[in-house]
């Protein structure tokens, strides 16, 4: 073999390669590239915290600066994963505190992190800069106070959608006066009030602050004070957007918004009083991102806003926008990439708003750059889905939730197989798909045959038999995450596709027809899978192999069965009594 480049040169070349998948590919070229790459990898992404152990990660990658970890399965968002399931950050921070003194960034999603862990973070890393806790839980304001007090160079603190125990409420004042490095602060999930004076002082001494997301408790009357201190903001999340009707308040707020020449993104908008909406009209022409999904404002008000936002790329709204608002969106917002429409009244069967499949069809017609859709509605048809598919072959993410399970095509009363079939047929780059409505095995045949780039698939109340699951497992080459609930899928498809499961990150199946015996068999056959059965009824030991498991979570791992499970989670094959 010929000589290779000096290590330093290769390292320099590798420094331009940032995508995790590319890095992984580089490391597989040859042993020396593996060695060089592992010493210069600075960012780690671990999609399932149980797929690998902290020790293995640290041994392979000794010089990491940024760690991203995900814990609970996605369906935990919808209360399908019982409390205490796992996803603890503590074992990771214990080892990283020792091994990575130069760690700068920690990003966690759906993990449990305690105040103790937060304190450890704040004291272990001299150069700690970024903490993002997305949909996490297990900590309180005290933990935040430790971060504020000890992280001298903190740049980003983002608590998006985490559950924080608000005990004392006063943590902002723990940021020392010398801390001027803050660029991003997202505290929108906090329920209790923060000290306003501490907040103002913090903002005033943070000249690089670009993102500020307030929590609901920050009153509208005080928003202009904050904006005056931070006119350089690029992203703003308001607090509650309501106040008594006062002309002077409106003028102040309008003036404050007008001074923010860099604003591109808005969010917040709880409890909107429409009287105050015009205050931010002056920034609309610049807006690329708008989250009105907490704003209970009606279609005319929503429409008035979005028709002033020609540069809008991302929009989240409630279904109050209605079809008329979506028509206006399709005409006004030609740069739209991502649309999310949430239901205002998800538990009422009958429509409370005039939003139908037509709204989505309009947007698919008018917004040629639309790539990502999340749409809750109450009716859908195969023809509408086909139209959407033909209009928008560039879709990469299509998540449709028809509120009524197993709802058929409302016009023909047929299943929606053909409609979703058209989606996977036309949208060849589709990476993420969520199905709903009445669906037979046929739709899975379409998906298995056509959705070759599909990485994540969510299925609920669909299919007729194991054949459906078999089509997906045997056909979808790029599949990484599969989550299924309430489908008549049983043992056959699973056991016919065992090796597929090792090519995926994880499989979730709840309220399906998988037997305990099949779980045991799968676990024995595939030692590098953790086959976890979640069963809250207890007495799993005394159940016959033929009984169906409540919930099944299968994931590939090099770390073996985990040791932190609660009593209602059992990894198959762990207990010697189950071995043949």
């Amino acid at each position, binding site marked *: 073999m010929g000589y290779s480049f000096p290590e330093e040169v290769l390292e320099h070349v590798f420094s331009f390669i940032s995508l995790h998948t590319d890095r992984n590919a580089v490391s597989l070229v040859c042993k020396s590239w593996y060695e060089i790459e592992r010493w210069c990898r600075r960012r780690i992404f671990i999609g399932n915290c149980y797929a690998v152990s902290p020790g293995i990660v640290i041994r392979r990658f000794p010089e990491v600066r940024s760690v991203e970890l995900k814990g609970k399965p996605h369906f935990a968002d919808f*209360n*399908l994963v019982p409390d205490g399931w796992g996803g603890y950050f503590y074992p990771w921070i214990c080892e990283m505190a020792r091994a990575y003194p130069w760690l700068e960034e920690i990003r966690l999603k759906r993990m449990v992190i305690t105040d103790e862990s937060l304190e450890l973070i704040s004291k272990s890393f001299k150069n700690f800069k970024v903490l993002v806790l997305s949909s996490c839980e297990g900590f309180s304001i005290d933990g935040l106070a430790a971060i504020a007090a000890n992280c001298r160079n903190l740049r980003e603190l983002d608590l998006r959608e985490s559950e924080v125990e608000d005990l004392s409420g006063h943590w902002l004042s723990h940021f020392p006066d010398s801390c001027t490095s803050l660029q991003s602060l997202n505290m929108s999930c906090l329920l209790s009030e923060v000290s306003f004076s501490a907040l103002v002082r913090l903002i005033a001494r943070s000249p690089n602050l670009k993102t500020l997301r307030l929590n609901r408790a920050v009153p509208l009357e005080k928003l202009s004070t904050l904006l005056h201190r931070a006119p350089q903001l690029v992203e703003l999340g308001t607090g509650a957007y309501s106040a*008594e009707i006062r002309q002077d308040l409106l003028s102040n707020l309008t003036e404050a918004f007008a001074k923010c020449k860099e604003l591109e993104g808005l969010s917040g908008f709880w409890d909107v009083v429409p009287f105050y909406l015009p205050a931010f009209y002056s920034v609309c022409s610049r807006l690329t991102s708008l989250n009105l999904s*907490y704003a209970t404002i009606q279609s*005319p008000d929503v429409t008035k806003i979005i028709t002033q936002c020609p540069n809008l790329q991302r929009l989240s709204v409630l279904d109050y926008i209605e079809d008329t608002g979506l028509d206006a969106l399709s005409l006004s917002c030609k740069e739209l990439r991502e649309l999310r429409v949430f239901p205002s009244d998800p538990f009422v*069967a009958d*429509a409370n708003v005039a939003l139908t499949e037509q709204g989505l069809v309009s947007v698919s017609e008018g917004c040629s750059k639309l790539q990502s859709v999340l749409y809750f509605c109450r009716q859908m048809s195969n023809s509408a889905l086909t139209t959407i598919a033909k209009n928008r072959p560039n879709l990469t993410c299509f998540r449709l939730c028809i509120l009524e*399970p197993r709802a058929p095509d409302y016009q023909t009363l047929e299943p929606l197989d053909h409609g979703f079939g058209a989606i996977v047929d036309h949208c060849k780059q589709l990476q993420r798909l969520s199905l709903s409505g009445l669906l037979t095995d046929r739709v899975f045949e379409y998906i298995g045959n056509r959705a070759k780039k599909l990485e994540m698939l969510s299925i*609920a109340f669909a299919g007729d038999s194991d054949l459906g699951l078999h089509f997906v497992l045997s056909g979808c080459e790029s599949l990484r995450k599969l989550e299924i609930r309430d489908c008549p899928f049983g043992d056959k498809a699973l056991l016919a596709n065992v090796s597929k499961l090792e090519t995926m990150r994880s499989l979730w199946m709840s309220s399906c027809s998988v037997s305990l015996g099949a779980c045991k068999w799968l676990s024995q056959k595939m030692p590098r899978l953790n086959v976890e059965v979640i069963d809250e009824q207890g007495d799993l030991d005394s159940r016959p192999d033929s009984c169906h498991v409540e919930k099944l979570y299968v994931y590939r791992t090099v770390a073996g069965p985990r040791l932190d499970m609660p009593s209602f989670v059992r990894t198959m094959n762990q207990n010697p009594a189950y071995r043949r």
Partner: protein
Amino acid sequence: MSSEISNITSEPPNTDAVTVGSLNINDTELTLGLPGESRKLVAKRRFSVITDLKLGGNHRSDSIITKNSPSKEQLVGWPPVRSYRKNMTKSDCKYVKVAVDGAPYLRKVGLELYSGYQQLMCAFEDLFSCLAIKNVSNEMKLMDPVNGTEYVPTYEDKDGDWMLVGDVPWKMFVESCKRIRLMKNSEAINGSGMHNSQIFETTF
């Protein structure tokens, strides 16, 4: 008199109109579209209007429930809306439902967001875009300019009585209002001195 229409269903009405007093039952028939739009009767879908009409002297509440009304809360985790988001959309503000005669969709208004009746009327104008405020002396009415139909805002109070919106001080109204109905006023107010509450009695 009241027993003839004791069960108002959403099926297409019979050709012979059933009337109670001067209220033609066809006026309350449920169709697609808001008042003012052309109407289509669709047999397949079922709508529901949640209204308690006090008919005759019995004060019987006749609620109209369709087969679709059972709530979805029995299914865990469905629809897939995060509980974080569920908590967020609820607010402390008192939201009441607003029904308009002839429209299948209810809206909600947050009463505490407004400081008076005038703003509430403006909100109705916004919510039901085909209606416009019609100012007749100090009476509050909305009108559909397309066909001249008038709508009178009424509300159900804490005692279950249906009252005219506007009679009591605003704060008292906000406190006692349970829901609102914009009632079609088939009888024109011709300024003959007929008191509002008398109209109320004869149309029921």
